């Protein structure tokens, strides 16, 4: 067994946790706000496109087995253009890390520890993130495996405990939402789930052996992730209703508050915060991993660990004010982020693939060199 490889099971769980990521916390209210009681249809749509995207990402990743996305850019487009695209990606990873860390701080300071400075929350969380990035992808994969178990356990308990609180009539009438609303909801959902999944390209071609099992890991992971989101969205609609959910910053958290089984199992929202922190952890870690590894590869450092702490400090700083307030964040998430994610998650990879295809067909002799992986 190769010590550096990630098993397919681990990869499945990484994909799933990564998709669930921050989405489980902040997305339900946005989606329900737009698509009302039909939000679950939007979620289904998003899962469908998510599967499609997962397949494409897998195929795209196969173009450069053994390399990362950044290396592929450099390789394919040469020093200047390649590094240019790479820098755009790194900027994206930077935005991803900082905004997610902001989300952690925002959630914690508004719902869990209200008087604690955001700096402290972000700082402590970032320490964990930096530690896992420094320990390497294999460690991240293993912790993802365990975190996934814990997550799933709490999640299932959570969903079952919610059941007594649901009102089935909340989901009626079905299909009232207009097509644009459904489309937008699905697009936003997608921008939180599969559109940004390309960060996996920063390590998966190197660490996961290619083949059918990997493709399946991609698809199964996407299915699990989207399934979890779908259930949370449905539960939010059923238990909180389409009127209350959009008002709440963190519908999932409020959902945990309404749990009351036999007047005994209640007041457990504190325990349920575990869910959000676990799901966030893998995603931020991956973003930060991509950021430092990408940076190290652009400037060609031999060891990416060197820049983890300084970059971590910058991320921490920006995470304090990246969104000036919650309204800015809400508007950004609805209006700008989906397009931004789309550019990096679909447009650029497509362009890269086209360039690759073009160069490979025009330079058949170079193929061996361009993709040493194809054969191996």
């Amino acid at each position: 067994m190769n010590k550096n490889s990630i098993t397919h099971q681990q990869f499945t769980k990484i994909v799933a946790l990564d998709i669930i990521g921050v989405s489980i916390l902040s997305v339900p209210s946005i989606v329900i706000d737009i698509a009302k009681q039909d939000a679950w249809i939007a979620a289904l749509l998003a899962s469908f496109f998510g599967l499609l995207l997962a397949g494409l990402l897998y195929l795209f990743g196969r173009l450069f087995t053994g390399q990362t996305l950044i290396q592929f850019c450099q390789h394919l487009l040469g020093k200047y253009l390649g590094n240019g695209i790479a820098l755009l990606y790194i900027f994206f990873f930077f935005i991803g890390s900082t905004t997610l860390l902001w989300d952690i701080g925002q959630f914690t300071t508004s719902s869990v520890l209200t008087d604690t400075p955001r700096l402290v929350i972000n700082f402590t969380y970032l320490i964990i993130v930096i530690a896992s990035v420094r320990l390497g992808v294999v460690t991240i994969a293993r912790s993802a495996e365990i975190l996934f178990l814990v997550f799933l356990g709490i999640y299932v308990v959570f969903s079952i405990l919610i059941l007594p609180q649901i009102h089935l009539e909340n989901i009626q009438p079905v299909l009232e939402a207009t097509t644009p609303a459904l489309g937008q909801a699905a697009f936003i959902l997608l921008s939180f789930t599969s559109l940004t999944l390309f960060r996996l390209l920063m390590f998966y071609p190197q660490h996961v052996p290619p083949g059918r099992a990997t493709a399946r890991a991609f698809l199964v992971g996407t299915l699990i992730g989207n399934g979890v989101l779908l259930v949370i969205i449905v539960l939010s609609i059923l238990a909180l209703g389409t009127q209350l959910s959009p008002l709440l910053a963190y519908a999932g958290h409020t959902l945990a508050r309404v749990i009351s089984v036999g007047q005994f199992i209640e007041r457990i929202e504190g325990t349920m915060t575990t869910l959000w922190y676990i799901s966030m952890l893998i995603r931020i870690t991956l973003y930060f991993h991509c950021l430092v590894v990408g940076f190290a590869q652009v400037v060609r450092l031999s060891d990416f660990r060197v820049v983890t702490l300084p970059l971590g400090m910058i991320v921490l700083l920006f995470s304090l004010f990246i969104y000036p307030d919650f309204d800015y964040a809400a508007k950004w998430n609805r209006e700008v982020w989906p397009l931004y994610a789309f550019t990096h998650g679909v447009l650029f990879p497509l362009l890269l693939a086209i360039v690759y295809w073009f160069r490979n067909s025009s330079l058949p002799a170079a193929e061996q060199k361009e993709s040493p992986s194809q054969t191996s």
Partner: protein
Amino acid sequence: MKKTKIVLLLIVILTVALTGCWNRRELNDLAIVVGIGIDKKDSHYVFTVQVINQIAIQSQTKVESRAPVVTYRIETDTIFEGIRRLTTVSPRKLFFAHLRLVVLGEVLARQGIEEVVDFLVRDHEFRGDFFFIVARETTAAEVLEIITPAELIPSVSFYRTLSTSARFWAPTHSVQLAPLVTDLLTPGKNPVITGLVVVGNSPSKDSTQNVQKSAPPTQVLLFSIGLFHNGRLVAWLNEGESKGYNYIVNKISSSVAPIDGPDGQNIILEISNSTTKLRSQNQDGRPMIMIEVNTEANLGEINVPIDLKRPGALSDLERSLENKISSYIFEAIAKAKSYQTDVFGFGGVIHRADPQTWKRLQPNWDQEFVNLPVEIVARVKIKKSGDIVTPLREAIQKSKRAQ
């Protein structure tokens, strides 16, 4: 090398720890708020908080002379300011997560409750599992200052009463935060809140003397349901109408229903199970609401000589209960219609069944609601007649006759 790294990490953790403790509140620094009362007096708000007096309820050193709760009162111009200013009146930090009861003064309720609700939703410390109550014909402060006999803490006492009576007694309706907000927001639904009446307003109500007699001079009765329209209290339902309301919204799990026997005397039926289905039907392009009540009842108390073994006797009882239920429902709807407030969620029913029609009706729903035809179908089934079939009184008469 490793050693220095570990030491550095520990230093970081300890620094954070030592400068920390931002949110820390020791248990004995807390003033546990169990009830909030909000009144409006002229143009400003009066806040009353009921806080548990920990010293008084300490089990080992029980101080009989101390009241189990303390109430603080403050007057401000805005609600937010009020809640913040409250922290200055108590030596301990007010802690709202265990709030059981929010009592709204009738004056305030009639002027609008949106602001109050907004605050309660926004602040994370309010968990939303408390009940709302309107202090009918009195102020919230009055209600919160009463000392109750059966429970040490009055708010908990009201909370319990409310949740038990909502289960065993039809005319009350418990409302928590989330449903209230939903009702306020949903087009085609208006909220209701149970009203509470203070009976026997004796001067000693706010002292422990109130609990030293087995029949406390001042008591609080839960009574009737208050109808809201656009966040404002507009009317009170009487007991029968309140029952009708609960039948419509399917909130009856158990109750008692007196029906008139042949001599005008009562036969009391115990309702063991009741489900209501609301349906919307299209009648010549106009929606109509069908209310279908299916009730199971048991014989409770029979004060009239009636031969239950006679064929049709039970079904006669069933018919008369059906009529009774229908009339409750009818009265409730009539009352709501007269105030143009759809507290039953008929609009939602139409919305779910027929979104197209709803879209047409929604802008003018209040008016449409008044003209909305409603059909009531009540079905009653008497399941058990109690352990004895024949009423005892009749059996005695019979056996005497036989002698």
